[in-house]
């Protein structure tokens, strides 16, 4: 059994890389501005530029190309389905009639154009997320979210979840391997039974670990919760940099949307 995750994106970049050292609030602010610009774009230029620049920055930061491509696979499946749905259901102008096993289906111009635009928007937005997540550690993102006044309880649970995610993943993989060598996955009935047991075992294990973790936290004086180190106030340079970047994105959006027609 191979789990759908092995490691998260923040694993790949070195801790002292300049991109990683950049204030997470700046990276999140720029990402939010870019996401908004892409969602609001009616032209393909903006998403295409963002995709190209994002992939170039990721490659320059030393992220392996196959890892970047692998992260584009899940949205690709959704995009293909959406393009197909849009192409046959939206519009009036026939573009091409397909005949598959005696069934004829007409693709419409408007639908294909709309589907392609949505597809570009998805890849553009995903590439921004990849840029943010590959270049920022989970803890920095959560601290920045706390700075944005996201609930402390939510952040605390998220930090604990993230901390134990890979611990349980390793344990579940070991349990699944043990089940496999004891022929737990021979036949449908056996497989379902083994998987159900595995799910139950991971839950039971989480309960045990929950008790142990709570006792450890109490012993360390953190019974009320994990202390989240607050981020220092943003410097004048950081604030100016963020404002400049957001203004630049806004200007680029205006030029692309109203300038290039």
């Amino acid at each position, binding site marked *: *059994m191979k*789990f759908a*995750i092995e490691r*998260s*994106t923040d694993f790949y970049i070195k801790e002292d890389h300049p991109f990683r050292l950049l204030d997470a609030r700046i990276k999140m602010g720029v*990402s939010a501005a870019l*996401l*908004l610009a*892409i*969602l609001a774009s009616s032209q393909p230029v903006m998403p295409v530029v963002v995709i190209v620049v994002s992939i170039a920055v990721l490659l320059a930061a030393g992220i392996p190309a196959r890892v970047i491509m692998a992260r584009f*696979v*899940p*949205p690709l*499946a*959704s995009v293909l*389905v*959406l393009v*197909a*749905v849009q192409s046959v*259901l*939206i519009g009036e102008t026939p573009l091409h009639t397909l005949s*598959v096993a005696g*069934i004829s289906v007409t693709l419409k111009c408007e639908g294909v154009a*709309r589907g392609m635009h949505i597809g570009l928007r*998805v890849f*553009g*937005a*995903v590439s921004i*997320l990849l840029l943010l*997540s590959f270049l920022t550690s*989970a803890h920095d993102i959560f601290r920045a979210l706390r700075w944005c006044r996201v609930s402390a*309880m939510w952040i*605390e*649970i*998220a930090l*604990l*979840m*993230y901390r*134990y*995610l890979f611990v349980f*993943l390793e344990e*579940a993989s070991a349990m699944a391997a043990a089940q496999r060598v004891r022929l737990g996955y021979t036949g449908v009935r056996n497989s*379902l039974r083994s*998987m*159900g*047991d*595995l*799910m*139950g*075992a*991971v*839950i*039971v294990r*989480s*309960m045990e670990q*929950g*008790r142990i973790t*709570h006792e450890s936290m109490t012993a360390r004086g953190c019974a*009320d*919760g994990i202390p989240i180190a607050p981020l220092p106030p943003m410097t004048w340079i950081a604030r100016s940099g963020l404002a400049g970047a957001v203004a630049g994105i806004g200007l680029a959006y205006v030029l692309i949307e109203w300038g290039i027609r």
Partner: protein
Amino acid sequence: MKPSKSIHRLIVAVIFCTGATPAAAMHISEGILTAPWAGLWFIAAVPFLYWGIREIKKRSAVAPQFKTYIALMGAAVFIISCMPIPVPVAGTCSHPCGTGLAAILVGPAPTAVLASIALTLQALFLAHGGVTTLGANIFSMGVVGAFSGYAVYVVARRVGVNALVAAFLAGLVSDWMTYASTSFILSSALHGEGSLWRMFLTIVVAFVPTQVPLGILEGILSMGAVRFIYTRIPEIIKGGAR
């Protein structure tokens, strides 16, 4: 124009061709929803998150270990949602939602909070789902999935159904309802000038080859998990839904 069989067949064929990662269909990808729709689903999800956080705070005040317990339970459910399940009809692997099982164990409102965290982690660090579609994904998986699964479990237990059968129904219903609501969210945002109902029907039909067997499998696995937990920690199941 009514949706013809041929259109549905073509879309189903595309699903088969792209079915190597149908788990992605569970989450609406980043960039699919336009800003107004993304904002609308955030607004719809926020009250449930507020309710969930308030309930966790309340229960943590009574039992301080609850917060740690629920966080680790969330991590476990996240791992469960990454377990590959072979889908016999599509011939590919997919993944369970896990929200039905989580709702049985911790209640629906805290499950919405756990789903919101899991979806945030998946969006940020695995590129599954997205940040702008987070509200929509929380609503379909964490709200509709968790509350429907929990409601079915509670009703089934009240009418005297065995806990294992009730867990099966919770897993099945939460999975199917998650996909139905995802289909509705997608069709409401993407129908354009066309009919909402027609788009909804088409997307539902597109999901059917993977989601019908996947829902049944999720039900069976939820039942197996509850059976295992019952043999180890019976009090968590014996006390009803919690």
